Structure formats: structure tokens, C-alpha cells
């Protein structure tokens, strides 16, 4: 029951030292609150228009123990803990070790108040810094472990002025302080990265208790102080055992801060000779510190040094929680993963030699692996990939975003499409050129958005892909109309004999179909579909794959063949026909570029399409078709249901519903696809044998694909590192083999049973498979 007596902050804190509480600092507003409450007569919630349900679910509630941090009880030791007091070397090392573990605990989906800020040294340091910061005083003078509210606190603002201190005092005010400053700076970096590239709460909880995490402090200045402190510690190492551990902890913090150097590194995109040893040496040094530090033995931290104090004491919009600390082995693994993730993508991204390699790196090494990435490595990647100037890997001097778009188009339909040179064509009027620039701009934005998808968590990847479909669908309509118009009015654009080739629209359609298939199959990875929905998704995906294969093997293949034909046959004839002079020289120069640059690239793309893409899609199509057939048979035997209403069917396919081309399959087509008569067991067995043959051919296709990826003369040239792509296909291969066995077992069930309704005897079980896009579908006896 709320008391109407004047508020007394020590009322409910019998353990609290009364001398620590000064009631004069507080204003009693009890009367005003109750007076205001008396004015509310309509039983309605009084709130700001800007306060919504989401805010409500995060709202704190006074006097509710689950929601009111003001009710947290602290011990006398916690209340009186003096962060400015000297501590032993062992104690400093233990405090730092726990801080590192709490840092990784924060990055494991927790919040700062219950992890790093539970460290009293860090919270007091930040509290004092937030009040004291000024551009006119020296870095270390900003930071103090002094708690003004404690009686008789021994304090020193500057380490340099305290000449009479002991080693233990210096440890606190030099080593522990610079460690805490460095760690805090790294948290500040994470918060900034989080704001720019991650989702608040679901990826990283960024609520900072209104503390300034050293956002404006120069990291180089901190590193300089770390190095000075390390020098001092090394000079003391003869007389104190364990200094090497503290030095290693400081070196680790230095490496964490130095991670920001990856944003300053400007690569030459598609140049495999980029120099990154200055970055890899940081990653290697960090791993050395981690290996050393994780095997050391650490004592308990002194009582009161880690506490819920900050939750009670500071501006807190969080609910009360216990301190959250993951096991140390998990923390060290996670920290090691952070560095190895960043090391991997810095090395690989700077080793790619072509757009195709770069695209495969983004797909197989980043997007497909993203759930195993440390969250900060994910956030860093997004900012590392696309810089503030919108350049890719900072390559703005050599490759603009427009160039990147053209590279992307070239990798699908070949280079040198005439429509992409429209801006240089003097015969094209300014209106058409303006339209061209606007459309290229839209294409840039769409591709930019695609690049921003790869490093997000898998759930967001799915949502952003769904949104991207609308953009690419609209682009296809706009570009198709533009290409047709330019071709018919100005006869500009590649052609396929008598009709326009529409290379840009074809590229857009190709990209869109890829996104549509990704969206469908990644829904399986997110476990969105029930058994009967999996059939629709595989059936629909297979339909899209067949359209994609048709596009690649007909229109796109012809565009590329025609470009090759032009370079090899048409252009040389043009040269022959022209008399000697500047025009002939220009044509000859163009021929040289064509034969030395464009032709080899066209042949490379042709190889990539024929020896990889078409074979990969064919194998996937075979597998999806086999599983779809299998699911139809299971459905006929009443082991899985079907969509009973068109509404539910359309609802499942809603993400693709607005796409103009290709049209969504109708409910009628879906029902027709399910027709299978299982009244005669022999016929069922024959169909099942056919499915097994089909899936076995898929197995062979995947084996060939993997062999080709492993062979130096095969298609490995299209990957900068084939480790992940081989694993991806090996997992699908295992899936195919698993399905082949399942189909054999089900064939035996059909042979032995005399009924065309197996629902009373058997049930279908869906579980995690070898590959995330393919769950295991097992028929089990009931």
C-alpha cells in the first residue's frame, strides 16, 4: 500500500547506511501525484500520443518488483565499495577478465546494465566522464574512479600527479583505468556500428543509460596510453608475477579498438593483390592473446566490484535483472569468432579477382553463414562492405556504385551492352538521357539494397528480400519499356536478329527470379512451413527455377553468343569495309579492346553459366521435383493434408502475389498438380521407383558439381575460397541421399500394405535435415 506520508528513501532499506542518503536531495511529489490522479474520472489511460503499445511493454512500473529498479536491495559492501582504493595485481587481472566475459555476455543478446556496467569501475568512470568531459583537458584527466558520495573517498584525478602511490594504487589508477577506458571505447564503437547497421534489441541492445561511451575520444590517444601503460608494466615485471597476463589483457583491448582500421582500408575491388597484412597482423595478435588468456586461472573478484548498483543508481529504462554472465569458455570462443569472422572477410574480400568471385563470396561466405557470425562481426561487415560514400569496400576512386551496377549486369549478360553507353551517345536527346540516368539511379538503389541484405540476421534477410521483390519487379517494367522505346525509336540496343535483346531487363528478371527462389527456400530454413506447405513451396520454387534455366539457356545465352559473334565476325568485317584513316584506326582500337578484354570475359561468363549455373539449377530442380512428387504420393496416402481453401493457399503465396511476371500459380493449378491415383499399388510403386531414379540422378549431378568445384581445372576459379560452397553442396548431397533412402523405405511400406490410406498406421515426421533448406521428412509407424 502506498503511504501518503512524506517520502523517506531509507524507509524500505533497513540495511542501508543512513549516512549515505540525503533526503534533502529529493523532492516529495506525493501530494501532486494524488491530486493529479483525482482529476482522472473517465477510467481512461492518460498518455502521450507518441506513447504506443511497444513503449508500454517496455514501461517501468513503480512499486512492481518485476519492473521497478528502485526496489533493488544492495548490501552495505556494495553501497560502500570504493573504486579508488588500491587493489592487488591478481585482483586487477580478475576484474579485467570478468569484464571481458561480460563484454561478450552483452554481445550475447543481453544489455549493458546487467553485463559490463555491473563493473563498478566502468560505471563510475563513465558517470564521471559524462559529467566532466571537456575538449580542453587531457584524456586521462577526464576519467576518475572517485565516488563523491562516499565519505572520505581517496581520489586522484590524474595518474601522473600521484607520486606517492603504491604499486597497487598505480595498478588501479593506471592499468585498470586504461583497460576500462579501452574497453568502454570498444563498446562505444559497437554502439555506433549497431546504430548504423544492426537492429536495436534483436541484434544488439543499445540502451546506454544516457552515458557517453567515449564517442568523441580519439582511439589513437587511447592506444597511445595503453602502450605507455604496457611499457610501465613491463618495467615492473621483474618484481611482480602475473604482469604478463595484465599486459596481454591490455594488448587484447588494443586489438579490439584497432578493428576500426578495417573501415579506413580502401580496396581496389577485384584486385587480388590488395595489401592487408597490417590488418591481418591485428587479428593474429588478438588470437594469440585469446589463446593465452583463456587458459589462465583467475581468482574471484573482490566483493562489491560487480553489482546491480548501476541499475539502482543511474538513469535506467531497463527492468531489474540479475547480472548476466556467460561461461568463460563461451566468452572466449565468441571473442575468437569475432576476430576470425572479420579476418575471414577482410582476407577474402581483398582477394577476389572478378565480380563473379565477389558475388559468390557474398553469397556463400557471408549471407549463407550469417547465423554463425558474431553480431559485431556482422555489424562491422555491413559498414566495411558499403562505405559512407556508398563505395564498395572503399573503392570509390576506382569503382563507383554505377560501375558496380554495370559489372553486375555484365556478369549476367556479358559486357559492353550498347544501352549502357547511352549517356555518351550524342544522337540521343537530353530527355532520353535524363530517363536513362534516372533508371540507372534506380538500379543502383536496388542493388545497393541487395548489398545491405547479406549481413543481416536470417529473419531480417527474409523480410528485406521480400521487400526487394517489389523493387525489382517495378524495375523490370520500367527498364523493359525504356529498352523497347530506345530500340524502336533510335535503333539503339543489342538485338536478337529481328527483335530487341533487352539485356538490362533480362538481367533484372534474372536477379528477380533469384530473389524469388531465395525467399521461398529460405522460408524453409526459418521453419515457416508445415508439411503440406512444403510441397507448395518446392513445387513453386521448381517452377521458378525452370523459368530461370530457360532465361539463362535461351535469351541470355543468345545475347552472349551474339556479342561473341559480333567481336569475332561482324566487327572485323566492318574494319575491312572502311578505308584507311582515323575511322578505321578507331575501329581497330575497338577491336583490340574487344578481343583482349571483352571476348575473354564473355567466354568466362559463358563457362560460368554452362558449367556451373545451369548445372546447379538443373540439380536443384531435379531434387525439388523429386521431393514434390514424393509429397504428392504421401498426400495421396493421406499422410499429409493439402490446402483446403484457396484463401489459405493464396495467403501462403502472398509474398509473391504482386509479381507481374511470372504469374502466381492458381489454386486450380495447385489442385491439378496433386492428382495422383494410388488405388493400384503397382502403379504407386512404379511412380515411387521413378521418383527414386530422379533423385538418384540429382545425387549424381551434385557429385559432379562437387568434383568440378574441387578440381583446379573445373569451376573453382569462380570462388576465391571453395570451402563454404563445397560444404553447401555436400550438405545438399547428403539430403538427396537421405531422401533416396526414405523413398525406398516408403516403397517397401506401400508394397507390404494393402490399403491406399495409411493414415491410421503411419505418420509423417518433419525434423531438421542436413541442409537448412531441406528438412528431413520421415514416415514412421504410429
Amino acid at each position, binding site marked *: 500500500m502506498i503511504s501518503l506520508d512524506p517520502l523517506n528513501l531509507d524507509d524500505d532499506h533497513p540495511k542501508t547506511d543512513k549516512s549515505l542518503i540525503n533526503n534533502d536531495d529529493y523532492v516529495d511529489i506525493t501530494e501532486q501525484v494524488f491530486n493529479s490522479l483525482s482529476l482522472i474520472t473517465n477510467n*481512461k489511460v492518460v498518455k502521450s500520443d507518441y506513447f504506443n503499445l511497444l513503449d*508500454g511493454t517496455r*514501461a517501468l512500473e513503480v512499486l512492481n518488483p518485476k519492473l521497478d529498479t528502485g526496489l533493488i536491495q544492495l548490501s552495505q559492501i556494495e553501497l560502500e565499495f570504493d573504486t579508488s582504493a588500491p587493489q592487488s595485481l591478481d585482483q586487477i587481472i580478475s576484474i579485467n577478465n570478468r569484464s571481458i566475459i561480460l563484454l561478450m555476455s552483452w554481445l550475447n*543478446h543481453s544489455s549493458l546494465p546487467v553485463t559490463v556496467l555491473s563493473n563498478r569501475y566502468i560505471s563510475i568512470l563513465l558517470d564521471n566522464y559524462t559529467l566532466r568531459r571537456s575538449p580542453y583537458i587531457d584524456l586521462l584527466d577526464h576519467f576518475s574512479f572517485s565516488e563523491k558520495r562516499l565519505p572520505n573517498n581517496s581520489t586522484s584525478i590524474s595518474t601522473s600527479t600521484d607520486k606517492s602511490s603504491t604499486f597497487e594504487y598505480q595498478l588501479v589508477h593506471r592499468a585498470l583505468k586504461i583497460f576500462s577506458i579501452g574497453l568502454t571505447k570498444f563498446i562505444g564503437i559497437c554502439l555506433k556500428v549497431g546504430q548504423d547497421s544492426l537492429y536495436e534489441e*534483436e541484434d544488439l541492445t543499445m540502451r546506454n543509460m544516457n552515458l557517453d561511451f567515449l564517442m568523441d575520444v580519439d582511439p589513437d590517444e587511447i592506444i597511445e596510453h595503453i602502450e605507455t601503460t604496457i611499457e610501465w608494466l613491463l618495467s615492473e615485471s621483474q618484481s611482480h608475477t602475473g604482469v604478463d597476463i595484465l599486459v596481454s589483457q591490455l594488448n587484447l583491448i588494443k586489438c579490439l579498438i584497432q578493428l576500426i582500421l578495417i573501415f579506413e582500408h580502401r580496396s581496389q575491388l577485384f584486385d587480388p593483390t590488395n595489401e592487408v597484412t597490417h590488418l591481418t597482423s591485428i587479428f593474429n595478435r588478438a588470437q594469440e592473446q585469446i589463446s593465452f588468456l583463456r587458459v589462465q586461472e583467475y581468482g574471484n573478484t573482490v566483493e562489491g566490484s560487480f553489482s546491480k548498483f548501476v541499475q539502482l543508481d543511474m538513469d535506467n529504462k531497463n527492468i531489474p535483472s540479475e547480472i548476466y554472465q556467460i561461461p568463460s569458455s563461451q566468452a572466449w570462443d565468441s571473442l575468437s569468432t569475432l576476430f576470425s569472422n572479420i579476418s575471414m572477410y577482410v582476407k577474402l574480400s581483398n582477394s577476389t579477382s572478378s565480380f563473379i568471385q565477389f558475388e559468390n563470396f557474398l553469397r556463400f561466405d557471408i549471407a549463407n553463414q550469417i547465423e554463425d557470425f558474431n553480431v559485431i562481426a556482422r555489424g562491422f561487415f555491413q559498414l566495411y562492405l558499403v562505405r559512407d560514400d556508398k563505395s564498395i569496400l572503399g573503392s570509390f576512386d576506382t569503382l563507383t556504385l554505377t560501375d558496380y551496377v554495370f559489372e553486375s549486369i555484365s556478369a549476367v549478360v556479358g559486357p559492353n551492352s550498347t544501352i549502357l553507353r547511352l549517356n555518351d551517345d550524342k544522337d540521343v536527346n537530353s530527355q532520353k538521357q535524363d530517363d536513362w540516368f534516372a533508371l540507372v539511379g534506380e538500379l543502383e538503389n536496388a542493388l545497393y539494397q541487395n548489398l545491405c541484405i547479406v549481413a543481416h540476421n536470417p*529473419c531480417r534477410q527474409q523480410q528485406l528480400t521480400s521487400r526487394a521483390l517489389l523493387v525489382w519487379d517495378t524495375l523490370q517494367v520500367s527498364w523493359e519499356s525504356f529498352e523497347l522505346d530506345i530500340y524502336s525509336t533510335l535503333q539503339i540496343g543489342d538485338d536478337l536478329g529481328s527483335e530487341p535483346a533487352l539485356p538490362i531487363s533480362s538481367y533484372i528478371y534474372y536477379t528477380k527470379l533469384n530473389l524469388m527462389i531465395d525467399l521461398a527456400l529460405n522460408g524453409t530454413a526459418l521453419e515457416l512451413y508445415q508439411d503440406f506447405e512444403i510441397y507448395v513451396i518446392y513445387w513453386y520454387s521448381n517452377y521458378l527455377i525452370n523459368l530461370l534455366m530457360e532465361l539463362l539457356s535461351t535469351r541470355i545465352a543468345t545475347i552472349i553468343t551474339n556479342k561473341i559473334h559480333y567481336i569475332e565476325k561482324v566487327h572485323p568485317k566492318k574494319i575491312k569495309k572502311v578505308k584507311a584513316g582515323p575511322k578505321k584506326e578507331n575501329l581497330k582500337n575497338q577491336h583490340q579492346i574487344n578481343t583482349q578484354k571483352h571476348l575473354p570475359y564473355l567466354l568466362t561468363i559463358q563457362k560460368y553459366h554452362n558449367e556451373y549455373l545451369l548445372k546447379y539449377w538443373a540439380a536443384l530442380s531435379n531434387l525439388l521435383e523429386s521431393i514434390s512428387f514424393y509429397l504428392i504420393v504421401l498426400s495421396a496416402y493421406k499422410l499429409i493434408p493439402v490446402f483446403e481453401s484457396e484463401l*489459405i493457399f493464396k495467403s501462403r503465396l502472398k509474398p509473391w502475389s*504482386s509479381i507481374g511476371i511470372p504469374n502466381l500459380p492458381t489454386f486450380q493449378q495447385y489442385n491439378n498438380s496433386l492428382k495422383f491415383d494410388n488405388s493400384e499399388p503397382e502403379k504407386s510403386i512404379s511412380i515411387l521407383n521413378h521418383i527414386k531414379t530422379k533423385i538418384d540422378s540429382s545425387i549424381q549431378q551434385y557429385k559432379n558439381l562437387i568434383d568440378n568445384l574441387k578440381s583446379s581445372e573445373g569451376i573453382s576459379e569462380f570462388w576465391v575460397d571453395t570451402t563454404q560452397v563445397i560444404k553447401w553442396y555436400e550438405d545438399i548431397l547428403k539430403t538427396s541421399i537421405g531422401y533416396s533412402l526414405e523413398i525406398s523405405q516408403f516403397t517397401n511400406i506401400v508394397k507390404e500394405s494393402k490399403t491406399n490410406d495409411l493414415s491410421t498406421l503411419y505418420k509423417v515426421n518433419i525434423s531438421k535435415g542436413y541442409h537448412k533448406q531441406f528438412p528431413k521428412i520421415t514416415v514412421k509407424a504410429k
Partner: protein
Amino acid sequence: MSSSDNLKDDNSSLITVIDNLEYHQFDASNQEQFNQISHLVSQHLSEPYSIYVYWYFLNTWPQYCFIVRQPKPNDHNIIGVIISKVEPHRNVRMRGYIGMVVIDPSFRKLGIGKNLVKLTIDKMINWDQIDEIMLETEVINIGAIKLYENLGFLKTKRLYRYYLNTHDAFRLILPISDKSTTRIAFLPQLES
């Protein structure tokens, strides 16, 4: 006097009796019902909610809160509750939202949750002609997911680390009208 005696013994709120359990509509003027509901929810849901959340739902959409009680002379306390709302979604379709379903553990596996959801669906369709119903549930709550899927809900999104306990959630939608199968950008605005 037990707390259950404070619950209004008002048969006007009684909707139905199933398996000897009474299904009532929440009475917004009954403070004791409000207290029992918030107590039941805070006891059995993982997310801690402030009083504002209860007020937000129960005061704005009291008609969409249904409670389950044992008939007298048994203990007449609330043993199950469903709390929902209905609002225009992006001003293009009417969306029902099931916010909380809580059943006292000793009364689980009796189909009470299913009855409450069915009752809510029925009322939302009749009273507000909704186009769809949406809700979220933890990915590990297999029982709840099965319940909703059996009623026709589809998992439409997975929400990364949605809950405070860091679990992912599934967003499920039950389509009621064709509007639910069309993307928002392609729907006309609702008439005001």
C-alpha cells in the same frame, strides 16, 4: 471473504459453458477481475508486463477479453484468459490481434486455450468484420503453434530474438478475407 467472492456473479457476462467451465466476457468495471487477470498473466507468461499493457488492452477492447472460471460452488477464480484487440492495420485492412492467452497450468490440455481462440475469432468476425487475425508465439512453444496451425493460422514471419528471454518468435496470421492475401502496397485505404 475469498477474492473470488468479489467477482461479480453476473450471468449477463456468461457466454457459454464447455466441459463444466464458464466462459465469460471480461467486465471492465470489475477491479477484482482486472487484478486476477493481471496476476494470472504475470504468473505464467515469460514477459513481464507493466500495468499500462493490461490497461491498454482491457480498457480499450474489454469486449475482446474472455475469461474462464469454474462454476460455483467450486473455487470461482479465473483459470484462463484471452486478451485481444481489433484495429485497422496500416489503414488498409482490419486486423485482429491476440495479445495474450494464459491458462492456469492445472487446467491445461483440456482444450480451454483452443476454445478461447475460437471464441475470439468468432467474435472478431461477427463484430468487426476483420480481414485477418495476427499473433506472435515463441518458436519453442510447439503446443501453441500446433493449436494455431490447426485453426488455419500460417507462420508468416520469424522474428529474431523477439522475446526478452532471447527466443525467436513466429508471427502467425489467420486469413479471413481476400484482403489478407494481398500485399499492403496494393490495397486501397480503408474508408474512414
